[in-house]
């Protein structure tokens, strides 16, 4: 969130914490931006991960140095998505999960922390 926007929100009596949440405009990717020899460059990275043929609904993000991060394993950043997904799989349960208290519908995954939908454009 930009500084002036933050100041405006904090000055509002009706400021809702949820307004500050969606600072990532991208849903399932990362955009690395930089300038080099006066040219502006954007590298947009998306991962589509399937496990046993089923799409894994969470998203991975890439830092400028190429390290990959997953918010569900908060202490990790690995050199490749392969390394990171291996670690996610290591932690998966075979047991059938209990039902959600509030059904989310669709794929069972609610609005993602990094954005409003699964297929939105990446950005920052």
């Amino acid at each position, binding site marked *: 969130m930009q500084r002036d926007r933050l100041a405006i929100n904090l000055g509002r009596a009706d400021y809702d914490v949820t307004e500050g949440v969606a600072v990532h405009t991208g849903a399932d990717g990362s955009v690395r931006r930089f300038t080099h020899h006066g040219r502006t460059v954007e590298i947009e990275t998306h991962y589509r991960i399937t496990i046993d043929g089923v799409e894994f609904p969470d998203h991975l993000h890439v830092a400028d140095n190429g390290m990959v991060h997953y918010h569900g394993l908060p202490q990790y950043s690995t050199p490749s998505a392969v390394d990171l997904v291996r670690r996610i799989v290591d932690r*998966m349960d075979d047991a059938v999960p209990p*039902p959600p208290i509030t059904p989310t519908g669709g794929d069972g995954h*609610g609005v993602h922390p990094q954005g409003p939908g699964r297929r939105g454009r990446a950005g920052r």
Partner: protein
Amino acid sequence: MGTRRDVQRAADDRTGYVQGCVLLSQELTGVTARQADTVLRPVVPGWQLRTDDPERELSTWDLFVLWHYVAMNLPTAGRGANRAHGGPIFLPWHRLFLLRLEQELQRVLDRADFGLPYWDWARDRAVGSTLWQPGRLGRNQGPVTAGAIGALRVRVTQRFQPTIGGYLEVHAPRPIERAAGADPDAAALPTKREVAACLDETDYDRQPFDIDATGPSGMVGLRNRLEGWRPVGPALHNRVHVWVGGDMGPGTSPNDPVFYLNHANVDRIWRRG
């Protein structure tokens, strides 16, 4: 705030700490899983709370776990960043978190001067350290069922499932679980040399103020290095989480009392920096 001492040297503080953690984990608050879901679902993007018993009550200990999990699931500017990690907020957020837990311990122990102990993991690094005896913090591999800490109960766990991804589960009470040294990314705890390198950092944090800070001569800022992203992660704080493993891994890591011992040490290093 009480005086914070080394958990291995201050036997009275260590005993009180374990006793206090167990008491907080057994102190039911009247807040149910369903109530937590009702309050947090509109606020936390991606919120998904699953349980076989929506009326299960949460303990004071569980509410701290929830607090941490919620902060981790509220993103903010910066890659890999959330409201408590991956940016400049990391150290002050956890300082406040420690203070609030310390206050709760003072209350249940009826000791106004009680100080949260710290674990100096760069000095006490052995997998067979006495820290992990049943009479201290309990075994570091498998379910922790022996000793006073064996009575601590976990009810809220972040889990992963191929089609759902990460989700939060409220479940029947169970002991803490650990898997020390089992992760190849964290075969050993951080060293004194790594702590010294962290303290050599001249700035608190550096651009771009997330997990990816860079600077001249490899300087990345104290926060980044102490949190454990650079030079090669998982380092320092992050590595301690990964090394202990089990409940110390996911966003519900405050389930394990070792979480607070780790962060009290991180906070101590920050004060020295």
